[in-house]
């Protein structure tokens, strides 16, 4: 029988996904601002 995820496990997944999005956003912003137009 498939075991349901516990509350804390779902919350950790949510925070991990949002943290990943935050990390990717920061990387994208850092890359875009490092491109210097003379």
């Amino acid at each position, binding site marked *: 029988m498939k075991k349901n995820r516990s509350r804390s496990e779902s919350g950790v997944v949510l925070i991990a996904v949002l943290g990943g999005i935050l990390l990717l*956003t920061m990387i994208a912003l850092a890359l875009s601002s490092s491109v210097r137009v003379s």
Partner: protein
Amino acid sequence: MPAAKGQRGFTLLELLVSTALTAIVLTLLTSGLRLTEAAWLRGSERVRTMQQTLAEDEAIQAQVSSAIPRQLTTQFEQRQLQLTTFQGNAREARFFSNYSWQGGRNSGLWLVSYRVIHESDDKERLVVSEQGFSSEQQLAAFLLGSQPSTGSGFPYGELADHIELFYLRPSSPGSPAAWVQEWKCDDQKQKQLPRGVRVHWQSAKQERDLTLVIPVREVPQ
């Protein structure tokens, strides 16, 4: 086994953390969008300025290369003078052309003046002014400087600390070609147009030279 009632969902702490993360991501995205928009506007403005500079450079090149070489005999201060249709010094060039900034090519004959004027804050600017040709007396008076350049003219090029004009004297036996700062229309030894005009902008930040070529054409006697 399904979770019991009241046991589903996230804890308050998880919700607070995820809301904070979402807010940070949204803030970053918004500021990123603002930066992108500013860069886009800056780029568009730069392209527009470059296109305008290019169009003006083409117009000034067309006008200078359409300078008409002519000889005219005129009476000035009780003297009989033979004039060539080009007069220039470091601050102003006056010549006769069949290209107009207003009317384009073949829009009649024009008396054209490029002169350096003082603007505010010790800056200088080159101004192009042109007037229609009506008579040889008007042309002679214009070349000899007794008739001031009319109108405010069109500003050309950027502001600079110092702007100078040079004229290319072609080589002749015994003297190589050289850029000079004086071209006299009543010089009896030099009955021709210069081979080119060079505009030199000098600023603390940068220097720029624009060389305009005048094709070789025989001066009708």
